[in-house]
């Protein structure tokens, strides 16, 4: 009991709130609190490719371009570049040149790599370091050479850049460059400055030129990703010293950039901390946005210098329950909404509009929604003899009708309603909303699956699907020739017992047509292997766009990029000669009415062939507390922390209000325990005083 009271006194010394997970020294500071569930695998911009990692890397690294924070459709604007580079075709279109000029005067964050003496540290000195930032720090100006150095790193034999294959196709000489580096590669630091790359040239100290094979208009989008952010050679040399890797001091874990923040605490097991970069070149909050931004208060800080927040603390939260409760207690400023807590957080009206629940409203929590630039779909393997399309004439037509019948029966709207709490919209084709080529309204519907009725699309009736099925040679779900029931196979990844309801739902969609569906569940690796080998029949998959260009969706159906044949991203192995020819034409065009026409034709071909059941474009829902301003979802970039603003005083007041310790139950428990001990004490005393009983 005494220990318990001492502990209560200890907690009461923690301040007015006892459940604050952050140190008392942080109270009242301009710190944004967020979380991460998975350890980042890579923070090196040459390798990092996931959204989770981008939350860290994009605050530190600055590629030449960025997306406008507020404008939609997404618009590229300069970040460190002076302007968005325009492609210049040379040698009759054989090559394209991008000349990128960097603003002078931009300086790197303080880093030990910029101090020459730190490049010759002894093993014992390194062994004693708790953080690289314990060493003397230096800086220097950003130059074009740093961008060139990073582009060369894409071909580094010991770094595995996921975009190397793609860039080797386009950047002149990159493939050969990688081969050359492979021969030179040893275990130490490879000074790439000594090895020129033909397609990347230095024009002057602040200008560089990238030469591409042919035309690749989408290249400019890559210039907004950390793959093309500058890396100073000094940092790489610093981290390559013997003994650094054993302390986990590597460039892969300690990013070095020019961005608004620098990563000063790197403990992926517990917390990662970004602090304001004192050398940041400065940027101002945008003064223009899309319609409705001004009304939403998103332009209130127009022209103000950013970043607003001094520090960002990311805490590791592996489980949803503690994470969600900490958000409700005010210890996280912003939160996503998982299915488990959706009903608690969101109220959906009969019209389908979402608002926060009464409980959230009472706390002043705001809801933000946006349609993600991604698509989830159910694919038919084009090489499959039953549902595939690798046939001609009547068999091809029958298979097409079978796919259409399934597409109609597969009620995507119901799926979104049941399994995603209404968070998504039914896809009408491969392109997601907000991307050039996407059509809204009547013009945008898939006429093979939907009819336009009044003001919205309506899925065709199941009778239409049955008729198509009969025409496909399977009346009543049976093979017209053999009379055998048609059994189809869906491959998917099983994540746990919770998937059962989803699998039952899938079966019911096929049962509408009296088709039997066998669901073959497996783990992610086996599933990927099946797709690679082309041994699936029907499977579920999805795609998140890299950049806001229709090419980044339409290439998922491009024949030469078949997964089974060439390990490309066309997982359905779909092939259509006309589609492929149009893709080749479309991919190199700038957005124009002509490009729109080609895209519409391509989409129509795909809709008619139906290699996918066009599934869902998910909607992202996020919640933020009343003290957080300027939050606007951006599916293309994760560098938005610099725009966020906190009302620290309001946060502190509400945290105090929401987290007052409730002590009476503790007192009650102690009292109950004490009272319940009384009979035992009485019994004990009676026993101790009891006279010996006679034997027998």
């Amino acid at each position: 009991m005494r220990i318990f009271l001492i502990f209560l006194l200890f907690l009461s010394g923690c301040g007015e709130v006892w459940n604050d997970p952050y140190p008392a020294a942080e109270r009242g500071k301009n710190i944004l609190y967020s979380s991460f569930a998975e350890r980042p695998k890579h923070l090196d911009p040459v390798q990092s490719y996931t959204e989770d990692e981008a939350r860290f890397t994009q605050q530190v690294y600055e590629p030449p371009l960025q997306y406008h924070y507020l404008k939609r459709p997404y618009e590229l604007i300069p970040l460190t570049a002076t302007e968005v580079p325009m492609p210049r075709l040379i040698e009759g279109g054989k090559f394209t040149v991008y000349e990128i000029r960097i603003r002078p005067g931009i300086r790197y964050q303080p880093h030990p790599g910029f101090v020459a003496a730190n490049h010759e540290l002894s093993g014992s000195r390194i062994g004693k370091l708790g953080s690289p930032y314990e060493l003397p720090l230096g800086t220097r100006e950003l130059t074009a050479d740093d961008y060139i150095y990073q582009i060369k790193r894409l071909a580094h034999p010991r770094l595995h850049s996921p975009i190397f294959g793609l860039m080797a196709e386009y950047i002149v000489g990159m493939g050969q460059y990688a081969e050359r580096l492979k021969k030179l590669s040893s275990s130490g630091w490879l000074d790439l400055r000594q090895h020129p790359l033909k397609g990347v040239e230095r024009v002057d100290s602040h200008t560089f030129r990238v030469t591409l094979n042919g035309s690749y208009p989408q290249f400019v989008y890559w210039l907004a990703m950390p793959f093309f952010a500058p890396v100073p050679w000094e940092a790489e040399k610093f981290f390559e010293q013997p003994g650094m890797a054993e302390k986990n001091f590597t460039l892969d874990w300690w990013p070095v950039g020019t961005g608004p923040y620098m990563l000063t605490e790197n403990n992926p097991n517990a917390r990662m901390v970004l602090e304001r970069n004192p050398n940041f070149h400065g940027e101002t909050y945008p003064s223009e946005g899309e319609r409705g931004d001004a009304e939403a208060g998103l332009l209130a800080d127009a022209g103000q210098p950013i970043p607003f927040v001094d520090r960002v603390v990311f805490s590791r939260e592996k489980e949803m329950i503690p994470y969600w409760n900490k958000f409700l207690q005010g210890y996280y400023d912003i939160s996503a909404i998982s299915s488990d807590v959706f009903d608690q957080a969101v109220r959906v009206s009969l019209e389908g509009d979402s608002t926060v629940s009464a409980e959230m409203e009472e706390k002043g929590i705001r809801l933000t929604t946006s349609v993600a630039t991604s698509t989830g779909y159910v694919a038919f393997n084009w090489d499959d003899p039953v549902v595939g399309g690798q046939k001609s004439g009547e068999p091809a037509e029958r298979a097409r009708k079978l796919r259409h019948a399934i597409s109609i029966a597969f009620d995507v709207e119901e799926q979104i309603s049941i399994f995603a709490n209404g968070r998504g919209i039914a896809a009408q084709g491969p392109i997601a909303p907000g991307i050039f080529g996407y059509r809204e309204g009547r013009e945008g519907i898939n006429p093979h699956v939907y009819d336009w009725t009044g003001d919205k699309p309506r899925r065709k009736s199941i009778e239409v699907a049955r008729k198509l099925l009969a025409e496909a040679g399977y009346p009543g779900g049976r093979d017209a020739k053999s009379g055998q029931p048609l059994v189809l196979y869906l491959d998917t990844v099983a994540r746990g017992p919770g998937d059962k309801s989803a699998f039952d739902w899938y079966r019911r969609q096929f049962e509408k047509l009296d088709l039997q569906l066998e669901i073959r569940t497996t783990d992610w690796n086996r599933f990927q292997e099946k797709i690679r080998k082309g041994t699936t029949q029907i499977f579920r998959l999805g795609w998140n766009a890299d950049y806001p260009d229709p090419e980044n969706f339409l290439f998922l159906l491009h024949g030469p990029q078949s997964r089974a044949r060439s390990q490309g991203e066309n997982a359905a192995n779909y092939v259509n000669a006309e589609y492929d020819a149009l893709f080749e034409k479309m991919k190199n065009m700038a957005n124009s009415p002509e490009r729109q026409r080609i895209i519409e034709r391509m989409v129509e071909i795909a809709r008619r062939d139906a290699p996918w059941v066009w599934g869902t474009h998910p909607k992202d829902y996020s919640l933020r507390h009343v003290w957080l301003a300027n939050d606007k979802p951006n599916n293309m970039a994760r560098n938005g922390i610099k725009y966020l603003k906190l009302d620290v005083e309001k946060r502190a007041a509400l945290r105090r209000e929401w987290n007052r310790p409730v002590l009476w139950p503790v007192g009650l428990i102690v009292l109950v325990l004490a009272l319940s001990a009384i009979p035992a004490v009485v019994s004990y005393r009676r026993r101790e005083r009891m006279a010996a009983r006679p034997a027998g």
Partner: protein
Amino acid sequence: MLAYIVRRVLYAIPILIGVNLITFLLFFVVNTPDDMARMQLGAKRITPDAIEKWKAERGYDKPLLYNSRKSGVQKLTETIFYEKSVRLFAFDFGAAEDKRDIAHEIRMRWAPSLALAIPMLIVGLAVNISFAMFMAFFRATYLDFWGVVVCVAMMSISTLFYIIGGQYVASKLWHLVPISGYAGGLDAAKFLVLPVLIGVVGGIGSGGRWYRTLFLEEMGKDYVRTARAKGLAESAVLFRHVLKNAMIPILTGVVVVIPLLFMGSLLTESFFGIPGLGSYTIDAIQAQDFAVVRSMVFIGSVLYILGLLLTDLSYTLVDPRIRLE
């Protein structure tokens, strides 16, 4: 005694080789080096060439157990199993698949694991013994009966329920402690009190019942009857004689788990955000990080063998009748 210890250490070598082999086989039954490469390299835009490079760089391009293309002893040494296993015996764990140094990670994580496990063990032991003594003292009364009922009920409840329920009540409703998180030094106390309490409460059912059985067994022995016949108070009989003798199985049961405390608690660490070795192991399994999995299994095996050895040694300390030959 020394000869006994040396013999046990020598026995440990084939056991560790066996454990390592089983871990290796189990891991590679469900994962291939290609799977590992894909997991590490990500799902998008990964070429077969990148996978081959990843495997070659980490030595996963060799055969698993037998290299038929080599001659002599290299048929066995030029394999993934040999190359990945042999360094473990020198406690050289190398780097995880994400290139973070495993020894460094272990050094960073053992303290939070112990900070959670040691108080949980000590407080749990004290509470369980007290509760068991209480039931033994009031044996065959309604207090004993209801004590056993409570124990059975508590044993039947999942640990997850205690965790979620504890977080809900103590953190969400009463706002007494942080719901999850961790900090070093004295600040760790406010994060540890709830998981320790939950661990202790969750262990009362099984611990209380087991210890009660041990006490009751002792209480039926002649020396207890003699003590009572001498006129000793029941409390003196229990605490001075019964407890002392019942401590032999309790102590040996505790000694065997002491080294394993180092390995942390998988579930508790995950739910409370404690960055210990338990959550490290879970992360590694989820990330298909064979380097970490095999290291943690190896350390776990070594510690378990050590625990068994300590148990044998502790027998000789608490029971003078036992000699290790």
